[in-house]
């Protein structure tokens, strides 16, 4: 039991560190693809939380269903993001978000 508690705590801390790293990456970089890498890192941590939740409460089947659905949605978002990125690259010739200054106020 004690060992189990330790395992959960470790996983929780690792997950939070990954989320913080991902969010820091999203805030601090100016390259669009690097921002998306940050999103992906944080989403992997969230997926791990779902798996951990299924492990803790003993309903691994349900958590499997949740994880697969979450991954599918993540891929769809990735596709949309890539599409927008390609069009921005065609317009500006690079992927720096500091170009995006047309909407202000």
């Amino acid at each position, binding site marked *: 039991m004690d060992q189990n508690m330790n395992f959960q705590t470790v996983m929780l801390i690792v997950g939070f560190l990954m989320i913080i790293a991902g969010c820091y990456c999203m805030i601090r970089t100016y390259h669009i693809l690097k921002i998306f890498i940050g999103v992906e890192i944080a989403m992997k941590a969230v997926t791990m939380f779902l798996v951990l939740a299924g492990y803790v409460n003993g309903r691994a089947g349900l958590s499997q269903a949740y994880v697969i659905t979450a991954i599918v949605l993540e891929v*769809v978002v990735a596709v949309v993001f890539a599409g927008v990125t390609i069009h*921005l690259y065609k317009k500006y010739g690079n992927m720096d978000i500091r170009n995006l200054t047309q909407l202000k106020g």
Partner: protein
Amino acid sequence: MNYLNYAAAVFLLIPIAAIAINNICPKPYMKKNFHTLTGTVAVFQIAAAAYALCAMNANGLTAYDFSILSNLKITGSALFRLTPVSLIFLLCIGMVAFVSVAVASKTVESMRISYVNLLMTMLIGMNGMVLVKDLFTLYVFLDVVGISSFVLISLFRSTKALEGSVKYLVISEFATIFILTALAFIFMQTGSLAYQDIGGVLEGADGSQKNLIYLSIALLIAGFSIKAGAVPFHSWLPDAHQSADTAVSILLSGIVIKIAGVYGLFMVVSLFPGVRAVQIALAAIGVASILTGALLALRQTHFKRIVAYSSVSQIGYILLGLSCGTTVGLIGAVAHVFSHAAFKTTLFSNAAALHEQVGTLDIDKMGGLQSRMPVTSLSSVVAFLSTAGIPPFAGFWSKLLIIIALWTSGSAVLGGVALIASIFTCAYLLRLQKKVFFGETPEHLKNVTEVKGGIKFVEIALTVITSATGILFPLVLIYLQSRGLI
């Protein structure tokens, strides 16, 4: 009772059928008739919601479980639930979708097939969100709404549209991360995410478990506030609204921020009733949104930006209504969702009319359009009076209910703030009216004429809805009193 089951199926099956028809029919034919198809879907949805509301009332039902493909008699097969509140949300969705289509028949020249596909996907997502019975499915439909709105914003691939879309996308990803983390923690404690299993989770928890639950509630509130565009998460909202096509802005401001954001917060409030922390958080976000949105709207010069910041401000009123935790507050919030959907879509259709006829939306370049565009001018005045809460329009009654709820639940100060902030609402909308419709007419605007077709029709229809709801609202209050709700 059987008819109620068919009416319920309309909300999810008809949009799917519309997507199929849209892609099977020959392209030139669909390009010409795209508004007939989508308008029919919206009218069907309005009719089904109104019918189901009457049927549930006649049978005295407060909830009706239904499923689409499986047999209802098997336990756990009913995946969807109709309630009076969700029916009012569905009515708003149908109304806003109809207005968007009517405006799109004028403003959307190319990409019509994609527009219909995305609009129908978004309709499925929003209908699903208000019908589901568990939090994970709510998240799935929330992502469906989000993805279709990212693509709709950047539909015409102008630089501004791509910029607005990218900002919305990145900020929405924060919301997704927050909401999914919260769901994982709640799932860890309860072993299920169905609404009826989450209710008692706070009572059964102790120590560190309780902290995790509180953390997940905070994450849920943050995530849904991002989707609702409430302060301090509002930065994406004016950019996305300004850069999108006006038909898409109507959808975003009229309904998406309310279904994706406010309905989620409504679920949080009803899943964790009476939790003081939730109420304080919602009240703080609400007051900040009201004041910041109104003050920022005062210094904008773009028509759609002013209206977008006004949305931020009005969302604050809805959150204040939710924060009371009383039935009157919830009724006020839902009523304000309806009246906000009506007057905000009116203001955006005015924006579409001005963009069509004048060619710009910069309010410094306009003036004296009242005599040249009488219908647009009159409908925008009615919408402005309703936004500011002047009787007898619909906005007055919903704001009155919210302020009464705040007063009776012991936060009189917040009620006072909500009342005084109405003056700011008057200020920025008066500035808008004065610069666009009154004063001297510049030389280059002498030949402007009134807009025709779909836009004119929805302007008149929405003005009638706003006025009629306001005049007939006492009947609603009498009905609610007879049911013992207020």
